[in-house]
């Protein structure tokens, strides 16, 4: 893999990417749990590794890693779990426990101090794991899909907690959930096949995705082509009407995006106020929240359950995707530079 990433102090970066993109591998390398064959890394001027010559073992890096599973030590109480970091750093038992109590308080879990991990629910355990990682006072906190193993009912609470504790802290959070990036991170990095494919301030990347992958992450339909006066001509010569960004220069490469939710689906062609109608052959149906997402090649439309039941869409049948020009945003395409992952100015 080949990744170049810099974090300023107190910055939280979200790393997104498909399965196998190398997100966990990246964190493992930074934490010192994997040994790279080449490359180098440093933290606040300390070299962490420089392939072949330098290798700082995990326990000397001051980098805590929080994974999907809380991995609380089952033989220690919650309090001693949280005190583990301070103890390892040489604090006395009393000092370590005091620190642990402080951090347990921070995650609203003082009540569990004397429980064993086995007596906690998944969400509670993950909260303790966060306290334990923070108690080690790491210079950098790594989070690898910290909410992936949690019930949908407890994830929001944990997200709130993370929002609080990550504020003003240097952290890298790997997630498959764009909402995590939005809520928790200042900056977003999209990784694919071990490379950075897109990077930038979270909201910008999600609202003006350059790559098809980022558009997919943001849940947007994306069409690339050439900007025209009042829209875009796609590569396969389809005209799209939309709201053209000021920065977009006609004749230059551009990108058009619109939400699947903004697309209406009709069994026959319709004529009316919406300006864009695309005939589409259904390729797939999948659940999407409380709606059904109808896919037709690269485009998608979300319809309600009852609309879907009325439409009875089936793969292979031809339908018409209709979207208002007002729902389409058109902006200039940028050349994605792979190194553009520096700290926010």
């Amino acid at each position: 893999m080949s990744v170049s990433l810099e974090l300023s102090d107190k910055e939280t970066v979200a790393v997104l990417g498909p399965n196998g993109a190398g997100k966990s591998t990246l964190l493992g390398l930074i934490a010192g749990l994997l040994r790279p064959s080449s490359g180098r890394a440093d933290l606040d001027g300390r070299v962490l590794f420089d392939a072949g010559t330098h290798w700082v073992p995990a326990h000397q890096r001051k980098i805590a890693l929080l994974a999907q599973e809380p991995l609380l030590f089952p033989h220690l109480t919650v309090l001693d779990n949280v005190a583990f970091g301070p103890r390892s750093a040489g604090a006395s038992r009393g000092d370590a426990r005091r620190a642990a109590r402080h951090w347990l308080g921070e995650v609203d879990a003082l009540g569990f101090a004397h429980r064993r991990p086995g007596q906690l629910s998944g969400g509670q355990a993950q909260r303790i794991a966060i306290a334990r990682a923070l108690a080690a006072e790491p210079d950098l906190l790594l989070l690898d899909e910290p909410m992936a193993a949690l019930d949908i009912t407890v994830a929001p609470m944990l997200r709130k907690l993370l929002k609080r504790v990550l504020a003003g802290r240097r952290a890298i959070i790997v997630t498959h959930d764009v909402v995590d990036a939005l809520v928790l991170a200042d900056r977003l990095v999209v990784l694919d096949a071990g490379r950075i494919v897109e990077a930038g301030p979270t909201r910008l990347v999600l609202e003006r995705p350059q790559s098809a992958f980022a558009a997919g992450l943001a849940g947007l339909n994306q069409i690339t082509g050439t900007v025209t006066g009042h829209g875009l001509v796609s590569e396969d010569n389809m005209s799209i009407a939309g709201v053209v960004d000021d920065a977009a220069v006609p004749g230059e490469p551009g990108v058009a995006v619109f939400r699947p939710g903004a697309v209406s689906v009709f069994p026959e062609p319709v004529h009316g106020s919406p300006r864009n109608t695309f005939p589409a052959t259904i390729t797939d149906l999948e659940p999407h929240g409380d709606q059904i997402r109808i896919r037709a090649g690269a485009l998608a439309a979300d319809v309600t359950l009852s609309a879907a039941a009325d439409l009875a869409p089936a793969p292979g049948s031809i339908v018409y995707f209709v979207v208002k020009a007002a729902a389409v945003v058109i902006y200039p395409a940028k050349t994605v530079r792979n190194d553009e992952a520096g700290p926010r100015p």
Partner: protein
Amino acid sequence: MHGAGKAPAAITIPLWIWVVAAAGGLFILLPLAAMVTRVNWPQFVPLITSGPSLTALGLSLRTSAVSTVLCIVLGVPLALVLARGQFPGQRLLRSLVLLPLVLPPVVGGIALLYTFGRRGLLGSSLSVLGIQIAFSTTAVVLAQTFVALPFLVLSLEGSLRSAGTRYESAAATLGAGPGTVLRRVTLPLVLPGLASGAVLAFARSLGEFGATLTFAGSLEGVTRTLPLEIYLQRETDPDTAVALSLVLVVIAVAIVGLTFRRTAPKLLNSGGTRDA
């Protein structure tokens, strides 16, 4: 940060652990090395190919093979019952099955004598049927089976437990009766565990001495297995004894090493080799 390629950074083991482990390894290795130094190498081949040596080796291999089969026949059901059954006395049964593992073989031999001997618990009934076990090769096989059975049972029980019952449930809902499930699902699934259990049982049978001596006697070609031959030769011909001991060690290492070549020993290994 910029990185390319990767390898797991093995969990660091403190240095002193390596040192003590080396001492532990030497503690087992040195005695074997010491034995090698005492071998009369020029005479080695003649010593181990003498008539009595070859006879004893042949007998040992044959009886160990038969007792391994017997261990499989008795041990597979025992392991199944221990791993899958629910019945009163299950714990006691497991303790008892473990017993020959820790019982001095001579005591085991005495117990066998009291059971299958002419005057033993079953002996008189067997005599009536015209079956004479004592002083026969059968007695050797029984003694070996007695001491080797726990190795097979417990190895297989472990495999059965870690395999779980989910595949068996799936097979049952597909219409397979208990016999079919056993034959086509359970046994194939635990085949590696069964194989290593069988190998250990074979090796243990090959090394069995005390129970055989006490229960079966020692007659060339009938009951005098390799360990008994070694014991006897020691009286008059230490060179042969040492040479034969080495043969036994080599056979045992070869068997154990070959079987566990690709995997950690299943017998004593809880939960496969997946370490995160």
